[in-house]
């Protein structure tokens, strides 16, 4: 049976919902944007972010809903945070 994915439910809305991921290896480093992840809620975003970006033993990692980010230099473009 083909998977039927309820996008509103599983992705959080009509459009995919993204979270931006920031991390650093040690206190000496600055928090850096390392990527983004799609999830319907923060718990799932947290777990998915951790599992996809676990190539380093991060000292600190946090996520921010992309929708909460206000672009300044990228104002007017579709881009909120550049992917890489």
């Amino acid at each position, binding site marked *: 049976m083909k*998977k039927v*994915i*309820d996008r509103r*439910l*599983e*992705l*959080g809305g009509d459009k995919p919902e993204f979270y931006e991921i920031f991390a650093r290896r040690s206190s000496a480093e600055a928090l850096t944007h390392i990527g983004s*992840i*799609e*999830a*319907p*809620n*923060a*718990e*799932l*975003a*947290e*777990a*998915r972010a*951790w*599992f*996809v970006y*676990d190539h380093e033993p991060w000292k600190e990692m946090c996520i921010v809903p992309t929708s909460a980010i206000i672009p300044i230099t990228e104002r007017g473009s579709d881009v909120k945070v550049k992917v890489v």
Partner: protein
Amino acid sequence: MTDATSAGRLSQTDQLLRDELYCIADSKLVLAGWYMIVLPNGRAISDWSAMCAMMQGQYGHARALYQYLGHFGVTREEAEWTRGAADIRSPKLLDQPPRSWSDFVATIFLAEQAISTQLGAYRSNQADRTLARLAEKVHKESRFHVSYSTGWIKALNKDPSSTIKADIRRRFAETLEWWDENDQPDGLFRAGYREASDATLRKRFIEAVEATIDVSGPDVPAPVSWQRSIRRSGKPGIPDSLFELIRFKNHELALP
């Protein structure tokens, strides 16, 4: 059981410890198998990453626990190859295959929570610091497993027609069978290996589940013929069909 020979030489507490850790390690072994079998059913690319990571994590924990069981005569040969379906000591919860993604989420949520609760009680163990530190490391590594299933429960629960609540309730009763309700003397608690008794841990597990979802309902009758050595009632072992999928094949090609 294949361990009959070595069992005779262990002290009573060691025997209890060996049994309980075997149950925990085997639960992780079977749970890892669940992730492996259900993997293609993942619903997003990141689910595939997450399921692989959790499978890998659970196998890693099982491997370290089996190795610790070496103190009690358990060999790698026994842990990974020579045992059959009847010798695996995982909770009854993991016997029946998931009926849906929602049922899968319900089951891994309960299993991860139950196993973490039990092993977590070894972290402050004063009788054996090596075991305590191992338990600490396993506990730490399991944190994101719980947020993964919690996130999925929340997402599914938003849909009024979702079966997630019913799935958790049904599986919840099976999970409780991992603990004996009858107040038996708890040797591992008394010997200081665990900081809490089985009865307390059962309560902690229920509280942890209820923090995510309401599971109140009719009381679950205490299982009859519960056996501490396998943490379940009835016949020991897992279904043959499940065992066939998760057993290790091509023994001769195993890397050292």
